[in-house]
């Protein structure tokens, strides 16, 4: 079936198989590989993208559900919140293997956009769906707190 979607501000008309998770359309059809696969059952958060600005797990969203909606992937992520998040990420040397990090940053950015001054427990709740096998968690927390402070200033 033909589907019109907008990814990172670009309108695309794709030929897709009904029932294909958005994740695989993004990676295999559109060729944007910044969004990663880790579990396929919405448990690890590697596949997190923004759908009309809200963080969603793209492995759990079928492509036909996103017709005519705005999808943002890590490659298209920008704006003051994203910028603060990335700066804080670099400053805290958050990453290790990096495979979960696109998802972490997508979740963190959507979260900080909604919650300008999060407590540690807010951060824990918001980010619990993004697993990290390298266990970068303490730095993720520090970076999110720091990004929030940067945005306040």
């Amino acid at each position, binding site marked *: 079936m033909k589907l019109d979607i907008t990814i990172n501000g670009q309108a695309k008309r794709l030929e897709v*198989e009904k029932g*294909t*998770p958005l994740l*695989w359309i993004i*990676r*295999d*059809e559109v*060729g*944007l*590989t*910044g*969004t*990663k*696969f*880790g*579990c*396929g*059952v919405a*448990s*690890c958060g*590697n596949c997190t993208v923004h759908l009309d600005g809200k963080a969603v797990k793209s492995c759990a969203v079928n492509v036909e559900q996103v017709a005519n909606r705005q999808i943002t*992937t*890590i*490659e298209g992520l920008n704006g003051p919140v994203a910028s603060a998040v*990335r700066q804080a*990420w*670099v*400053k805290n*040397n*958050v*990453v*290790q*293997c*990096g*495979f*979960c*990090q*696109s998802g972490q*940053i997508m979740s963190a950015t959507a979260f900080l956009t909604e919650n300008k001054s999060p407590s540690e*427990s807010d*951060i*824990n*709740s918001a*980010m*619990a769906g*993004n*697993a*990290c*096998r*390298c*266990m*970068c*968690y*303490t*730095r*993720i*927390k520090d970076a999110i707190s720091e990004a929030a402070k940067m945005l306040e200033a």
Partner: protein
Amino acid sequence: MTKLPLKNDIKSNSRRDFIKASSLTSVSLLIGLNAKGALAIISQHDMEGLEVNPLVRIERNGTVTVISKAFEMGQGVTTGFTTLVAEELNANYETMRYEFAPVNTEKYINKGLGAQGTGGSLSIRGGGFLDYRKAGAAAREIIVKAAADKWSVSEDSVRIDNGIVSAGSNEAHFGELIDLARRYQIPEEPKLKNIGEFQYIGNEKLNRKDNFDKTTGRAVYALDVQIPGMVYVSIFRSPKFGGKLKSFSSSEAKKVNGFISAKALPNSSGIAVFGKNTWSVLQAKKKIVASWDETDAETRSTDQLVLEHKKLLEQPTYEVNKQYSTSEATEDIKKTETLVEADFLLPFLAHAPMEPVNCVIEPTRNGGIRLHDGCQIPTITQGTLANVLKLKPEQIEIKTYYAGGSFGRRITPTSDYHVDAALAFDLLGRETPVKLVFTREDDIKGGWYRPMHLQRAKIGLGKTGNIVAWDHRSACKSIAKGTFLEKMLVKDGIDHWSVENISDTLYSIENLAIGHSDFLSPIPVLWWRAVGHTQNVFTMETLIDMVATKVGRDPIDYRLGLLKSGTKKEHERFANVIRVVRDFSGWEKGQRRGFAASYTFGTFLAVVADVSVSEKEVHIDRMFVVVDCGTAINPDVIKAQIEGGIGYGLSAAIYSEINFENGVVMESNFPNYKTLRIDQMPKIDVKIVASAEAPGGIGEPGTPIAAPALVNALYAKTGRRITTLPISKSGFVFV
């Protein structure tokens, strides 16, 4: 025959002259002089830059590129190698680049491993520390010579600061000097800086070199590789290890749009399912129906496996300590008044790196292949693929990418997933690029586990609380036996990896008998982050803790007592980290905290763990860690590896086990093979002991210490001694 340009004939090093020379011959290679002044094939690429040596290349625009002979799986080696080169070369750390070395064992060998590759926490400590410093220093020396020549000044008057070369009012960047520098012989033993001169080594403010790629989605992993005409393949395997394919049907799979074909692998180990994209291949694989010959398969369930291990503890096959046997220990223990005993059950563990293993194989023009992979040990993979495909090793190119974690999974003695991809590639006629994909289920259920390990210890204590006799039994499957590693790792029938940290403990334990038996099963086992230390630091640190508390002694004091009589430097360094963490954590006798210490892969660690317990709910509040890893190159990377290593160990200690039901693995994905989440991660304070000793490893040592520190803390708080992992089986819930 072309007249090859000889050193003395060079009037100009200009690129034009070389290209003119080669175009006369119409050969596609450039033959010239490499940096050593020896005839060599140099690439077009080299004409742009100067390959000072295999590890450092300087581009014409002044950029310094580090060729990393290790791969980056998050452990920070690209940052480490770049730091070492930047230090000796006085390059601009921020603008330096790195790339992963192609496979060429002679050029890129890791002497510690005996192969080109990454592992054993050996990238820095196995030779890389000096290799990369020398590479940077050698480049510095020829740049200085070139500048001195160019400006007619003395070498002593030439400075290099942040990648800028100067002498008086003369100034140039590296790129402007490479044509001159090219002429000089690369010094074999260049002068290295003294520790007092370091500006990068030991600097905790350096940013990781892979930050930019990994925060922008630009980092490319093998899973991201796409080659025109590529076909996706996934392997349908026997649900029981050792099962052989009898027959299969793809009649239902054919109905999946995008399915291409399904073919049996030649070794009866599975079915290669081909499709035009990831989703179609995974959907098609689900529809394959197959039957398996289970004659040689593992068909036992967990309880039975445990029972079989337990039986092996009674009658050990091997006495590891030739001076003192388990029968002697049994007798000596009878004469003691106080006994400490424990039975340990440590389960099979999956690595579960965030990026499930995968790779791409494409044909090359010379009848060979190019493998695209986060390739952990190229030497093994190249050799194995050459054998399987009946090609020469030189026909196997390997392009290495960032790896989304490994923890040991990415290299098996049989180079398992690379071979699967190669067989699939061959089945299609070797003309079509194939991309092998794994689901998370393939990963968790696919074997190559940290072995299940049962241990039993009986320790007889004397009147002063001293250890009189220690009878230690152990049973697990050997990682090395039956592989090409057997010759190196197995001595007198004993796989060192099964007993490491027990047989070579630094604690002075006079009568330590170790009786070991191998468990046999087709279940494939493998090195998991820190290998034998993961089981044996747990058991040893638990047992010492039990002994100390049994005799009413402080756990830290007791361990210091066991190190007192040691005369090697290692004993003092081990005692030191223990004393330092006592201060660092504010440890006082009588507090209810957990302690553990380890000496793993050249690095000494001591940890104090604080937990809060409320009924069954446990919160790991804080861990204080002191580490002596010798010269600390990147302190922040070291801290991150400790945090990560401990987190990885905690996650496994709390949750992880691989269970079998009639030979089928029960766990499948993160919902049931749980992983630690952000809210459960404790605060970890790390203190690095200042040291000028040779660097120890850091990728793995953090992991083994996590479980015993936590279990000892739980004992201190609740009086409950846990010797079966994961801890969740004891009813504790971690919040």
